């Protein structure tokens, strides 16, 4: 069981952070950056439309929130904050939950908790509090031609994220 990828989008759909963990990529040629960016746009579009749909489907009084999208190949776990930050974690379908192999419910809640933890402990602590952070002006890809845009590599968000995900029993 592996985590394949992790993306963070802002309210407008701009990608704030993206990382691929998959080891299967060595069988495929390196994907074009264009293609990956298109893929991310599609993911955001799907999350956006689903949120509208879920909002209209939910009965009165319940809180509408999309937890995950499950396909034959993998599951996309999502978490969205009220400020519009969306996080998406794409994993394999049968997570190894550690010592007890439980039913699907606990695996869902534990992913939600993990995403919540990533938001509150890692994102807020490392990125929002960084003095260089400028919402709306983040550059994702490493080919930095524009000076003065915030580069997420100036914080240790990625290192902390890797350490946190590696400590989860369902990571590998």
């Amino acid at each position, binding site marked *: 069981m592996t985590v394949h990828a992790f993306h963070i989008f802002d309210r407008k759909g701009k990608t704030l952070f993206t990382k691929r963990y998959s080891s299967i990529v060595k069988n495929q040629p390196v994907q074009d950056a264009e293609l990956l960016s298109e893929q991310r746009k599609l993911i*955001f579009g799907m999350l956006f439309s689903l949120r509208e749909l879920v909002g209209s489907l939910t009965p009165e009084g319940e809180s509408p929130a999309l937890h995950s999208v499950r396909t034959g190949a993998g599951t996309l776990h999502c978490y969205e904050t009220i400020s*519009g930050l969306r996080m998406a974690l794409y994993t394999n379908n049968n997570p190894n939950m550690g010592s007890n192999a439980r039913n699907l419910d606990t695996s869902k809640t534990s992913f939600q908790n993990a995403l*919540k933890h990533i938001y509150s402990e890692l994102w807020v602590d490392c990125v929002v509090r960084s003095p260089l952070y400028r*919402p709306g002006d983040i550059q994702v890809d490493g080919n930095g031609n524009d000076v003065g845009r915030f580069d997420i590599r100036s914080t240790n968000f990625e290192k902390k994220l890797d350490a946190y995900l590696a400590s989860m029993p369902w990571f590998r």
Partner: protein
Amino acid sequence: MSSKSQAAQAGQALWAKMPKANAELFALTYGSLVTELVRDYEDPIEVNAQLDRIGHSIGVRCVDEFLSKADVAGMGLTTQCQNLRDTAEVVAKMGFKMFLGIQAEVGAFSQDQRCFSIYLQDNPLSTFVELPEDDPSGGEDLRRLKYSNLYCGVIRGALEQVNLKVDCNIVRDTLKGDELNEIRVELKEVLADGAGDDYKEE
């Protein structure tokens, strides 16, 4: 209303968990910032605008911290704020309490429920501050300076991130002789969540 005391309790709990800074250092740092701005811009109206801009920048960052801490505290904010009244309570009781440690009250809701006021008994920013008297020989009139205009920017920036466009003004100020500080907040519009430029159809 049970939500009022819930918000107050949650605010108390959040304040307890936040790292604290020295209140005097805070007030004096803000004071020197305002002094520099006055020296640079000279016109108090311009200084007010700059303070609002700085506050906006702060608000945009504070809202993420607030939402993440409040979520973890189990407040379930998505179900809590049904209308502007709830939002006002949350901003005053939880937001101000969490970041500044002060007790703020809400009141003076307008007829159409689109405006409200936040009252602050003591203002930690203006601890050692005195505004100078009117200068009879002309020069800039510092009585027009809104010393705590930072708060207006913070509220504006924070609410903008949750799709509420508001206008904030300081209407009463203890530095000018009133008995408490009052910030008037007006809802201009509720913004719709939209996808950005990348997604515009051709």
